[in-house]
């Protein structure tokens, strides 16, 4: 398993559209993807939009993403690229 931390910078945080893009990306890979947010005691399934929305991730939120599986490195790289693009 590998994990990485991010600061969310896009304008409205992970609302419906970015969360949906996140899950579409996450669902392309075999690895399990878990998402946590600092200050919230919950672990979200990175392949469920509802689960991610429940984390209530806003601009400035710090999140930790972990990928676990045969393609975990490429999975996390793809997600990193998506977040760094501010979900554009």
């Amino acid at each position: 398993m590998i994990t990485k931390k991010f600061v969310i910078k896009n304008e409205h945080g992970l609302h419906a559209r970015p969360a949906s893009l996140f899950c579409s990306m996450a669902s392309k890979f075999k690895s399990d993807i878990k998402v946590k947010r600092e200050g919230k005691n919950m672990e979200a399934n990175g392949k469920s939009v509802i689960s991610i929305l429940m984390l209530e991730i806003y601009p400035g939120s710090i999140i930790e993403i972990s990928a676990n599986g045969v393609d975990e490195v490429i999975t996390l790289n793809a997600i990193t690229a998506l977040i760094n693009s501010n979900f554009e």
Partner: protein
Amino acid sequence: MLLNEMLLIDRIKVNVEAKGWEEAIDIGGNLLIDQALIEKSYIEAVKQTLRSLGPYIVLAPGIAISHSRPENGVHKTCMSLIQLKEPVEFGHDTNDPVKVIFTLATTDKEAHLQSLRQLMSLMMVSEDLEVLFTAKDVDDIIEVINKHS
């Protein structure tokens, strides 16, 4: 605002007939337009965004949350719910076809957060979700909404 304060009984319809996603979005929106809670422009904005950005509002299998931005014509924070007689296609890769549509309208970024949190937790409970998909009586849906409010 609690979920059951936004989603009142006269904003819920079951067994609704719609030919496609646009008509379904309109019907859900009209429940709020008819009560002067939102403007027609709000629902037009929902459809325009879907046409340009795709069906990202289909958040889970069979469920769409029709919404746009406050500045597109919202008078009061509110929500409607329609359950379709026959599900419609939105063009979503994994979550089509859609049977249940929530229309969410909010006057600012904070007003709806508590109710949205309650809606999301409802959507995590599969037996409650099943009621939204299958209820023949609005009262059964109200019972589930109250349980999560």
